């Protein structure tokens, strides 16, 4: 796993500790896969924004739809 993927999975674990990364489809809807609601997602975005020091604007949410999307978004936003 890349560094951003590791960070992302750590933050996801804090929100959905009962879901194993190995069990999910990384190219499917993140909210479905981890059974997270809008509050969980906002907490995830908040945590990632803090961790990487990036704004994570709401307008970019469509680019954060799946695990892979989000990892890619974080990589490009931090590089």
């Amino acid at each position, binding site marked *: 796993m890349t560094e951003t993927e590791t960070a992302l999975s750590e933050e996801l674990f804090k929100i959905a500790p009962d879901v194993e990364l190995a069990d999910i489809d990384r190219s499917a809807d993140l909210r479905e896969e981890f059974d997270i609601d809008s509050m969980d997602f906002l*907490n995830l975005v908040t945590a990632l924004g803090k961790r990487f020091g990036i704004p994570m604007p709401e307008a970019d949410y469509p680019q954060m739809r799946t695990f892979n999307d989000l990892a890619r978004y974080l990589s490009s936003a931090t590089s």
Partner: protein
Amino acid sequence: MSEFRMPSLGSDMEAGTLVEKAVASGDTLRSGDVIGAVETQKGVIEIEVYENGTFDRWLVEIGQTVPVGAPLALIRGGEEVEPSPEEPSPSETPPAPPETVPVPPETEPDIPEEPEAPPETVPTPPEVEPFHPKPVEPEIVPGPPELPEAPVPDPNDTPQEIPIPTHIEPEFPPEIVPFQHEATSQVRPRITPAARRLAAERGIDVSAFAKGTSDTITRRDIEAIDASKSGRVATDFRTAIAAAMARSKKEIPHYYLSHDIDLTIAERFVATENAKREPADRLLMGAVCAKAVAAATAKFPEFNGHYSNNSFHPSKPVNLGFAINVRSGGLVAPALFDAESLSLNDLMLNLRDLTKRVRAGRFRARELSDATITLTSLGERGTDAVFGVIYPPQVAIVGMGAARARPAVVNGELAVRTMATFTLAADHRVSDGHRGALFLRAIDRNLQTPEEL
């Protein structure tokens, strides 16, 4: 010097285990402060003090299980807020000492106890108008665990004494993090909240299992341990929900209304606001709707309060129960206190804090017992409409369906709008469909001017 005793949950709780200490000798205490947490068969519940003073010392160690009523700690000096002597007290089980917080089942705010439970009164928010609990017939109101009312009924109580912080760093509610840190660094193994809850539900002794492992125990581990003992279908959680809902359906003559609300304006408002905000300060549509419901509820008192002893006791503050899904299964609806007078931003912060604590398996007795109306939402992945079951002793529940783009007629033209179906289930003993319709329409109106919320 006074003793702080193991709180009583009711007839079925005999003992509890101290799992976390949040205060140490010499700490200053205010009424409402959380001093620690105890684990019962029904989960971890925070314990609050109802007096001001100085914490003297703990009398039991973490991990120690003591019977209900046994002293847990000593508190020095300060003004003790004693309940009045007339306070009804359970006659059979040892009465909960005044300064303790009864531990409710961690589900719906109102779980009927066993029929032979001691007389209990319906806990009433401090400001609820005419309700002065007198000893009641046990068979009339099988209420939730009795709250010591006296510690908080002073209407002049400062808002700070309500144990919900109005401003809280949303990332790490202070009462959670230090606990976990202490817990993990001492006796208790590292365990995820979901795993801890599951272990509690299934009666698995985590500390025995965890010896020698440095890994965090996950829900999967607990399931593995439990795999051998299959067959326990109904958990405590589900049993409690079943009891409350069965009572509701049996006693409350529900009526139902449904109304489609155009959320296009509210959605734009949220998007415009959030574009200006850091993630930590962003709004959710759920919070905007909660505020709209709270504001409408304040103007329709017949939907806000408790029904007990064959009469309705309206509440002045709107303590809006917000139904929150718990990952390991089940649902709780803890209260956002005084939701009608909170600003939208504060309501959002409180909702965030509450959700976080509920998901971590931690909430307070008053949050469960003092809700005066409930809002339930299935979220964006839910269905078009949800028809709620009222949580007794409340008299109304508002349901919010998933918001989605739908065809609608606006100014005589067909348009695509973001719509959500709102429903009301209310108690016909207290209100009727005419008022219910006006209430739902008031919520609709509030949502058309979200900037005024």
